[in-house]
């Protein structure tokens, strides 16, 4: 456990792992996160969603104890919680081979040697990294560097696993492997907190998703119960759309805007787009419980 954390004095639900109380973060007086309160239970997979630069990564780093919140506090039920963190961009200049690096991180975390000698080769094999064991991490491709970043986070079987955009740069095989590992870890009792973009791979396994907008945790999206629609539109100004409360997430792709909305709000949003003289190119259901995408 790192950083300044208080131990929970009791009184909360038994399954609580971490509680964020009125967390705020400001850089140079500019507020990035405001009054964020969130209870993270044990054995849950929780997604933090939102557009670029809204403070998702900052929130994850605060939970990991790597950044200090400007206000509020974090309450950990167990002070000795094991945290694994995979950053969005794993450092490029690592002068060790993947195995050397992972052995060091395992030892530094205090992992028993016997477990390390079994799990490191196994994870390297699962992520198809064993063939690169004669090369330093700094000489690997972006995707393979990202895999090392993910393995160092999961290797110690953490109580809380924090993944910041874990799919970026991964090939589809590695993505599937990561999903399998996440399911295994959850079964073993790990709580996973993650952010992602442009992907619905996680959506079926996520227990709860929260949305950060204007520095505030504005909505709780019950992903399992509610289908979400993706509206692909053109000739629409992003600043205009940002004010619409129904929008869960906005992504910008060249001249297009991708808007994620709950299915129940889609008609209302479509009407507004047309009113604003935007052009609707496509409407897709990106996730439906128990079904594949349509």
């Amino acid at each position, binding site marked *: *456990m*790192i*950083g*300044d954390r208080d131990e929970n004095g009791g009184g909360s639900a038994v399954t609580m792992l971490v509680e964020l109380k009125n967390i705020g973060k400001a850089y140079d007086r500019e507020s990035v996160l405001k009054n964020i309160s969130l209870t993270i239970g044990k054995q849950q997979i929780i997604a933090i969603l939102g557009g670029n630069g809204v403070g998702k990564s900052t929130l994850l*780093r605060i939970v*990991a*104890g*790597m*950044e*200090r919140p400007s206000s509020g506090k974090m309450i950990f039920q167990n002070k000795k919680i094991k*945290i*694994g*963190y995979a*950053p969005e*961009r*794993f*450092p490029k*200049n*690592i*002068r*060790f081979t993947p195995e050397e690096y992972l052995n*060091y*991180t395992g*030892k*530094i*975390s*205090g992992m028993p040697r016997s477990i390390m000698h079994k799990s490191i080769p196994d994870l390297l094999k699962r992520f198809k990294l064993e063939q690169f064991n004669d090369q330093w991490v700094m000489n690997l491709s972006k995707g393979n560097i990202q895999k090392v970043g993910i393995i*160092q986070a999961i290797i*110690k079987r953490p109580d809380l696993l924090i993944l910041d955009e874990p799919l970026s740069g991964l090939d589809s095989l590695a993505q599937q492997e990561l999903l399998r590992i996440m399911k295994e870890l959850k079964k073993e009792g790990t709580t996973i907190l993650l952010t992602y973009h442009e992907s619905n791979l996680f959506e079926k396994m996520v227990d709860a998703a929260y949305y950060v907008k204007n520095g505030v945790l504005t909505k709780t999206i019950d992903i399992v119960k509610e289908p979400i629609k993706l509206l692909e539109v053109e000739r629409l100004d992003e600043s205009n759309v940002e004010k619409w409360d129904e929008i869960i997430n906005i992504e910008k792709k060249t001249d297009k805007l991708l808007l994620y909305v709950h299915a129940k709000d889609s008609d209302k949003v479509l009407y507004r787009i047309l009113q604003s003289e935007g052009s609707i190119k496509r409407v897709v259901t990106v996730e439906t419980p128990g079904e594949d995408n349509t």
Partner: protein
Amino acid sequence: MKNLIKYTLHDYIRSHKYFPPISTFIIIIFVFYTYTPNPIIDSYAVTAVVLYIISAWVCLSMLQLDPPVQRQLMAIHVGSWNRYYLSKLVSVLVISIILSAFAFLYPIVFKMFSEPVTFTTGLVTFANHIILSILGISLASLFSKVIMKSTINSFGGLTLTIVLSLAAVGIERVLPPFLKNILWILPPATITQIPLLDWNGRHIDNLALFPFIWVIIYSFIITFLFLQLAKRLR
């Protein structure tokens, strides 16, 4: 912490960043002992001050090794920021101890002194090397990239402070009496020189020990300050 120290030293060797400070130190020692014979205590007093500067240089380069994200990851793995930074500082100290051993043994092995080094003289002068290294390391930590964001502040600030600390005796002479207490703020890099040069080298009882203790206390205060600032700035 032991494994993070091993990791840091292994990474430092692979980065080749050790080369400028360590080669500089070795060359200075070679040049310093060009002419023989040399007085034992005076020579060791000088090489200890050189090591003070070199340790600061090694510390600055070692604290730059990990980019910010790697720092954060290692702090998570090792369990706390204090443990992370202390591991880094101890890694520098390991190198300083090796350099102290070199500075201590080189003139003995190559017979650069006119008389043999007694156990007491050896112990005190070796300890002086280590104590001044600790001072250099703690000082450099405060001027490292962890605390100072700009390279100019980092290198410039450290160089200026080291120069001021070495010129302390001269500054003391020109300062009016009521301002002399200001010198306590400066790193006590030369404070152990006078008792060492006044020492006959026979009994430790004849040596004024307070300056040595003050260097250690000063270094601990600076290290504590560094750890607090590093935590606050994260």
